[in-house]
């Protein structure tokens, strides 16, 4: 066999392997990569009233770097993303643990119930949270009926608290799926062996459960943090007057008179860059903690 035929065969094998990926790859190139590239190019253009002017200017990025408005918004957005992820991931971890090791096979029933919650629309679920958290909502009414409060707790709705709670409710099912899936591969024997050797619960979590469920935790964190940081509908509907996030401002730049598409595009890329950098930083941190 010559070297040429060997290489050709390897390419042929690679082609066979890659072929199933082709439709999805094509889809992503056409509907994700190309629009993103167009948006990136747009971020160097200028807007003059109703007209977009092709250019190669860094003015939009400079404006973002020097504006306290965008700085405040990006920090607030990242904070909301982190807080949401910090609540969602441990909750999802606990739910997954119970499903996997307490309910075992009956855990599937709980999984189906969790999946059921995803059947309702995104907006419907946000409005449902409004019904729960509102001044005259379920929670306030119940607390008043129980005599625990005299007047409605106003911080429950139209606040950053409401955003985090609503996002937690929305994202928890998405976070449970990868963690539960990862935990399904952890044998109960490992836990029992560790317990027999006298390992306390926190050691079980740190040395067995977290490292072995790490791929699921990573995905869950990605879902919770990235989706929370990128959301602008939830802050619009349950956030109050102090709850504007960067997503809202980006959306504003793409609609209506006075919009500025190039600035909106630049804002989107700056946000993506910061959020991704933080995401990878957290991933490194998790890896360091679990191997320490």
């Amino acid at each position, binding site marked *: 066999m010559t070297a040429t035929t060997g290489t050709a065969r390897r390419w042929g094998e690679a082609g066979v392997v890659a072929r199933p990926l082709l439709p999805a790859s094509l889809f992503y190139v056409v509907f994700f990569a190309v629009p993103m590239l167009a948006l990136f190019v747009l971020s160097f253009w200028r807007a003059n*009233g109703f007209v977009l002017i092709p250019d190669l200017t860094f003015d939009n990025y400079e404006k973002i770097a020097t504006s306290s*408005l965008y700085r405040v918004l990006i920090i607030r957005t990242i904070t909301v993303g982190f807080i949401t992820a910090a609540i969602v991931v441990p909750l999802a971890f606990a739910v997954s643990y119970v499903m996997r090791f307490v309910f075992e096979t009956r855990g599937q029933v709980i999984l189906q119930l969790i999946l059921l919650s995803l059947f309702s629309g995104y907006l419907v679920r946000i409005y449902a949270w409004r019904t729960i958290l509102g001044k005259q909502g379920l929670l306030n009414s119940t607390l008043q009926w129980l005599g625990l409060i005299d007047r409605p707790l106003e911080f429950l709705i139209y606040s950053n608290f409401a955003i985090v709670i609503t996002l937690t409710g929305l994202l928890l099912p998405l976070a449970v799926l990868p963690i539960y899936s990862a935990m399904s591969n952890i044998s109960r024997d490992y836990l029992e062996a560790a317990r027999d050797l006298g390992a306390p619960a926190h050691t079980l979590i740190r040395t067995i459960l977290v490292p072995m469920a790490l791929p699921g935790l990573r995905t869950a964190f990605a879902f919770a943090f990235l989706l929370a940081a990128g959301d602008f509908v939830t802050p619009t*509907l349950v956030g109050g*007057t102090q709850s504007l996030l960067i997503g809202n401002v980006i959306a*504003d730049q793409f609609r209506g008179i006075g919009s500025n598409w190039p600035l909106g595009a630049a804002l989107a890329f700056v946000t993506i860059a910061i959020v991704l950098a933080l995401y990878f930083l957290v991933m490194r941190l998790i890896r360091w903690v679990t191997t320490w």
Partner: protein
Amino acid sequence: MKEFLRHILESKLNEDVSRRCFIQGAAGLATLTVLGAPAVAEEKKLGGPLNFLGWDGEHGGNVAKEFLAKNNIQMQASFQSAADEALTRFNTGGRGSMDILTPNKDFQRAILESKTELFQPLDMARIPSAQGLFPAFKDAPWLTRDGKTYGIPMIWGDEPCVYNPAKWDAMPEKYTDFADPKYKGELVLLDDPFGNIWLFAKSLGMKEPNRLTAAELEQVVEAMLTVKPNVVTIGASHGDMADVMVRGDASLGIGGWAYQTLIAKDKGVKLVVGSPAKDGTFFWSDAYALAVDAPNADNAYAFIDFITQPESNAALAKELGSGCTVEKAFDLIDASVRDIYPYDNVRQPGGGILGTQIVVPPQNPEGDIVGSAAWVEAWQKYKVA
């Protein structure tokens, strides 16, 4: 089914569009199809596609259903989420594929004044129904340029305060009075930079509230910030504002929509309309316009003429919970919808207050006067503060 799914998708995609959300909801409830109305344009030329890009519901999906079917016209409607979306599409490959557009009055005025290419002058001989428009809409300044007409209004309205009468007897005299701590936790605003800034600029006594210098804009935002502690939330749309008030989370909406009172009534909540006596409010109107290089102009003219007939206009106004623009349509509308709008304004020639009042700032800075982008940024700063 396909049409139904598209209808739902369009409504979701355009969810953020203030009164348009209601329009969609109302469209489902009010199935006022006007039957058997004649097509005025030459029927032999009709048929085929009619491309519509405008506000949701203004394509007359229910009102014109029979007319379109009878004339074999296939309405291909897509809905905008912002006033300038038509221009964006026009300039990014849409030219030659757009027929009917539905600009609001300030956007249409800005386009005509800047001589930006988008609308073509209308051949009024092909829209005889337009003779029946209220005087305010026949020669309105935002619709005409150089003696030519560029739009036929189909609905109008105002943006008053909407409030719960169980909590408030009346509105204060000025918008700046809403800074009073007695309104704490009671106010809801609309996420509309221009409407809000305009109202407060007017309240501060600025002569041309849509033409502000940077210093004046800052002064307006400062005035608005004195009210902010009393604001519960900023509604994404008029529908959202109504929802906040119906739930009892706020009791007073600034820059609301009279139709919110009807929505609330359906849900067993009484809301009424009223505005600060000294400051008043502002008015809007949407019109049908024909895009430059419209490929189906015959269908478009026939459609506009049909929908400007009294029966059609009344049905559309009722479906969209708005004011009618045709005089004879007035008597065909239920008092419940009709009486929520101050029709005296549109009985005056020249556009009345609608003609003199401009809410939207200049697109670009004009000397010391800041442009619309500065208003948007000021509004964002207000929301962040």
